[in-house]
């Protein structure tokens, strides 16, 4: 028995109005908008983001802030320092060794004073943020540019190009970066490249950090490109007659923006730490320009008399790095295709 299937009946079933049904309300929102929406629900990441924005504002408006709430960062206040202990002068005028355990934290000096010279810590932290963020941002931008260009090239063209670039990345990652940075900072004379003093120091730091961290971005971009170029929309673009430029910049690159953004955000705190480490080792910015790492380095000699001098720059680095990491993690979750619908 064959099923008596009525051929003419099949005409009615197609439900033509159903074709366009269910194009969802979210329809005209792009993936970025959806990610943003998801990010807004992530309170922890949002908190990190707010802190990041505040830090950037602090760095930008450092002169204004110090004008209102502090003193110039390099102004000495030795009248407030106990000459025998080098700590901040305490309350007891009869005790020659009296020091203020709070480090002179008051309405006058919001974060207290530095030992020895008595410089205002609040202004130094605020100006330190400028240097830290400047170096971290610019070096990260350098990483992203080198990493994206080389990563996308390696991933898309493959073959010998890929082998050469990938091996170069391995070499860069294997480089003893810290030693190299210390050596380079000692070798480059003042006035090289037409830059002097801190201009030169900042540029050298940006260059070193950027030039040696790009493989982190490069590897991610290469991996993403490898999978993206196998996707059918790339083949479709080729079969429409699109050239390599169109495919790289119009088809593939927009799909790389999310991962690049995420990893750049996670690279910034690494670079902040790296800058702090270099300043700590004394190969960073020249004194008296304030940097967080440099302050930490100075503070270690006085940690008994002035514990706040250790804690405050340490806390500044800690909060900044944590905020960037939380924000970056949130960003990654928001962009993650696995959690998408």
């Amino acid at each position, binding site marked *: 028995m*064959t099923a008596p*299937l009525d051929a003419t009946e099949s005409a009615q*079933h197609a439900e033509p109005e159903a074709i*366009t049904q269910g194009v969802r309300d979210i329809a*005209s929102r792009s993936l970025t908008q959806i990610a943003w929406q998801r990010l807004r629900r992530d309170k922890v990441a949002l908190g990190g983001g707010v802190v990041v924005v505040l830090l950037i504002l602090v760095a930008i408006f450092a002169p204004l802030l110090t004008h209102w709430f502090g003193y110039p960062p390099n102004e000495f206040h030795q009248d407030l320092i106990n000459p025998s202990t080098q700590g901040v002068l305490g309350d007891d005028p009869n005790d020659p060794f009296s020091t203020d355990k709070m480090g002179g934290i008051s309405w006058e000096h919001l974060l207290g004073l530095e030992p020895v010279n008595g410089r205002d810590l609040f202004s130094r932290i605020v100006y330190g943020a400028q240097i830290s963020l400047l170096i971290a941002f610019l070096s990260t931008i350098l990483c992203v540019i080198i990493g994206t260009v080389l990563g996308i090239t390696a991933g898309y063209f493959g073959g010998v190009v890929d082998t050469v670039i990938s091996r170069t990345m391995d070499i860069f990652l294997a480089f003893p970066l810290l030693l190299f940075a210390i050596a380079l900072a000692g070798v480059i004379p003042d006035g090289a490249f037409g830059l002097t003093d801190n201009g030169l120091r900042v540029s050298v730091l940006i260059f070193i950090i950027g030039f040696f961290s790009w493989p982190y971005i490069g590897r991610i971009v290469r991996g993403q490109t490898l999978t993206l170029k196998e996707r059918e*929309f790339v083949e479709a673009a080729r079969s*429409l*007659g699109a050239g390599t430029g169109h495919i790289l910049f119009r088809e593939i690159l927009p*799909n790389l923006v999310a991962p690049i953004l995420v990893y750049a955000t996670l690279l910034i705190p690494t670079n902040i730490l790296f800058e702090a480490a270099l300043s700590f080792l004394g190969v960073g910015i020249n004194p008296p320009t304030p940097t967080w790492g440099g302050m930490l380095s100075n503070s270690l000699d006085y940690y008994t008399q002035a514990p706040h001098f250790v804690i405050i720059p340490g806390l500044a680095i800690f909060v900044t790095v944590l905020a960037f990491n939380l924000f970056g993690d949130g960003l990654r979750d928001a962009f993650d295709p696995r959690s998408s619908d």
Partner: protein
Amino acid sequence: MTNPGTGSRTAGSGGPVVSVRDLSITFPAMDGDVNAVNGLSFDVPQGGALGIVGESGSGKSVTSLALMGLHRGSKARITGGLTVAGTDVVAAPDSAIRAMRGNDIAMVFQDPMSSLHPQYTIGNQLIEAYRTHHPKAGKAEAKARAVDALDRVGIPEPARRVNSYPHEFSGGMRQRVLIAMGLVCEPKVLLADEPTTALDVTVQAQILDLLDDLRHDLGMSLILVSHDLAVVAGSVDEVLVMRKGVAVERGDVRRVLSAPEHPYTRALLAAVPRIEVSRAQRRAEMRADRAAVPAAGSEPEGAAPVAEAPVTKASGDSGELLLSVKNVRQKFKVRGGAFGRSTDFYAVDDVSFDLYQGETLGIVGESGSGKSTLSRMVMRLLRPSEGTIVFEGRDITHLPERQLRPLRRDVQMIFQNPYSSLNPRMTIGESIGTALRVQGERDAKKIRGEVQGLLERVGLEPSHYNRFPHAFSGGQRQRIAIARALILKPKLVICDEPVSALDVSTQDQVLRLLSELQDDFDLTLIFVAHDLAVVRQVSDRVVVMRKGQIVEMGDGDEVYENPQHPYTRQLLAAAPVLDPDEAKSHRAERQRMRRQSSTV
């Protein structure tokens, strides 16, 4: 609920082994609860077989997971009665559920490639499955059981193969191993969730035959979950059709398939491509349908000529030669062996065919047959290693990318996966318009106008221009992909499995659209697919490929009704059919062929 018809039941049909009463499953979601299953009831008697059929999102997989008690620990809320071999799956403690799984009810999953642990031998995994439920059993006993189970599912040399790792088996063999794993504790019910969806048609037939044999030999009950009515037809007594979490129809398989009561079942059945319906029949039917629609409106007279006229044109050989492929081969280097030496592998090996203006050439083959590689060579996304491809009298075999650009206007491709063939970061308007832009059109307004016109033509709305692909369903995306292929007004369109990722009813709509567009745009098509029935309905001529070579080529009806090559015959016997009786005769035919090949 006890089934008439199939008599060969070994066990006495006592009470039902599986009983589901008014089952509802709800998932909490961001914007309100989702009712995955709503008021579902069914029974499966001992030794009986139930097929659960539905399209994606119908709730069939959720139901089968709930039967295994796998909803536990998830956020799903479950109400109603769910009893498997006397265990109340909704209320019983976790320990009772663990004892039930594997022992009373075993599950075979869809993807045999990811369901086995790659780091353990299959013997290890089988033994573990047995010893979990029989903790007192010794190693030797468990191993004997494992070998037994492998033998029963038809793994050759089970005593030796028990020590092999999963990667040493093919997909079909892995699915057998998974079934063996299900069988090792001799469960009362075997639950197979899309067990053959990831497999080729010949392997699918073998697995379905195996399940059928096991059910009869061991007196097990079988629950077969599938999106494909034809897969279920030959293997079950009773069928349950689900849609959006609700059972729309339930009954004896013959009755449901021959006299469906619910309109949805009727629609579903009508949408299933039938291998016994020829190209001409199908085309005439589609054109008649199409003519009937405008007839209600403006042009009452137009119906007959539309249905008649193009039929004559369709008979391929009258058109002029459009494409000629001669002795092409595509070589890939396969890395491996000692010292990283690579060996050559021919994905397409010496293939030739001609294609005439206006005809449709179907290319059928299983995975690895080289059909996709061949279509990419014709598209010149790949450069053939040997041979020539001549399009409109021009040799395009070795044209560099830059010179191919004008050719791209004439030859276009529709890809298999509508989810990956559209750039997620571009609006669909941009995606479709890209073609015009790269071909030199600069007038943004004109591009927009053309794209919107075409969107309308493929059944979408012009206002969708600024939406992103993720807002569309699979079928809608495939329409967008079709629009993109047609925007340049090509002469030849290569369709690489254009409907294999879609549900049956969507598949039917897309096929109809393609057929309409072929008439309207005067297209020549190459239609590549693994589904024999789909290919028959769209193709004037058919090419059957196997391992990179053409085994048979000819007029569509000729190949299907009078296959010459044994491989074609094997494929045709393996194709699932809707009629349960015919499915049984196909099964007998397959057994005969298997016996034949084993004696040779």
